[in-house]
């Protein structure tokens, strides 16, 4: 969006993903530069979530290669724990740990995984919390928060690990429209600061506003990679056209 560079952070080369016999991702090629915001669009079930999950090691791939800073993330000897500290992820369902307060949720990773100093982490957490406007909810439990609040906390939790890339998987899908706005505003803010992001969303106008690059996937294949304006006004493929039509009455 703003500070896009030419340094390639993540490179996906011919990735295949199968569940048993069903091929869910087929020959996916994509490279993401530092500071770039890539939005992935596509009909339901096309494999968007699966793609993000592969990047984070939650799913194994059956072919191709994924390279993060030119190191392969394929094979037995990948230290996923370390990779996941660099590649943060936020899911559709507010998946805060329900038995921990907001601040405990945020500090768990930095303190227990990264072994960072408690006070330092606390300071960073406070800063991030106040940025998303939730500093006063620090000691609440997830059940005491609205959906939008929970998602903003989930984002803070991921950010507090100081990741280099953030993956967002339909983070607003189960939110009320007004909360959608709260959360998307946070993501917009991140984009402005130059965070590298891969975003799956169904909010087309948001996608248009935030993306440097739109990737359209259908049936497990990348059909189209375009600049946002181009994609929305003049999609190259018929499939993308058809997809966009669904959102017009």
């Amino acid at each position, binding site marked *: 969006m703003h500070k896009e560079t030419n340094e390639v952070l993540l490179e996906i080369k011919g990735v295949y993903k199968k569940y048993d016999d069903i091929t869910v991702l087929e020959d996916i090629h994509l490279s993401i530069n530092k500071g770039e915001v890539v939005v992935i669009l596509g009909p339901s079930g096309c494999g968007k979530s699966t793609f993000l999950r592969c990047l*984070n*090691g*939650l799913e194994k791939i059956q072919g191709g290669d994924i390279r993060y800073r030119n190191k392969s993330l394929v094979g037995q000897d990948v230290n*996923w*724990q*370390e990779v*996941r*500290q660099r590649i*943060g*992820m936020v*899911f559709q*369902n*507010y*998946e*805060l*740990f*329900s*038995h921990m307060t907001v601040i405990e949720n945020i500090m*768990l*990773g930095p303190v*227990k*995984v*990264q072994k960072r100093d408690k006070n330092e982490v606390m300071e960073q957490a406070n800063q991030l919390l106040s940025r998303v406007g939730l500093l006063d909810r620090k000691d609440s*439990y*997830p*059940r005491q928060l609205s959906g939008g609040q*929970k998602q903003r906390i*989930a984002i803070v*939790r*991921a950010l507090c*690990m100081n990741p280099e890339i953030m993956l967002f998987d339909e983070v607003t899908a189960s939110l009320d429209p007004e909360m959608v706005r709260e959360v998307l505003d946070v993501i917009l803010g991140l984009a402005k600061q130059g965070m590298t992001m891969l975003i799956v969303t169904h909010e087309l106008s948001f996608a248009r506003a935030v993306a440097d690059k739109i990737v359209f996937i259908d049936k497990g294949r990348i059909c189209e990679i375009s600049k946002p304006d181009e994609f929305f006004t003049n999609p190259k493929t018929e499939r993308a056209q058809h997809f966009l039509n669904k959102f017009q009455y």
Partner: protein
Amino acid sequence: MNLNWQFIAESLPLYREAAWTTLKLAFWGILISLIIGFICSIVLYFKVKGLKVVVHIYIELSRNTPLLIQLFFLYFGLTKLGITLSETACAIIGLSFLGGSYMAETFRGGLEAVSKTQIESGLSIGLSKSQLVRYVVFPQAFSVSVPSIGANCIFLLKETSIVGAIAVVDLMNVTKDLIGMYYQTLESLLMLVVVYLIMILPLSLLLTWLERKVRYAEFGN
């Protein structure tokens, strides 16, 4: 009411002692049950090969047969194999053998109630397997299982009334004894109920409190 107060006063020490025995048995029985249940549930949850079958057999045997007979085998049967355990030891082992399977099922239910998304989000912040289990899975499973753990504890406490069969002087045993010797039926039963009340009521309140305390995991998110 025509109660024989003298009789009540005289047998009070017996009841005090028996109540102590019952509590002791229940305490150890529950504690060991928790440990056994915990271990078994882990074996089941992580589907540990080999051990899984053993645990399944143990659970089915223990749940589907009466404690009375289990105790007889422990007490009289083991001796024939050269292992002689004291009455109290047998009673505690019997209670734990029974309770272990109830607790195992309870814990397993709790573990399975921890949603997949919670586990995935734990992974996504870089937690290792053991950290995940320690910081996310166990606390949540525990909070889900607390009500049934409580029910199991009360069940085990009451189940101690069977151990009279192997000559342990618990509350029920003392009561039956007194009735058999002096036929002060009303007084004896009344004392039995009162002592159980004194033991179970606080336990029940404690559990209600604990339940409220750990209810954080309720309603997932």
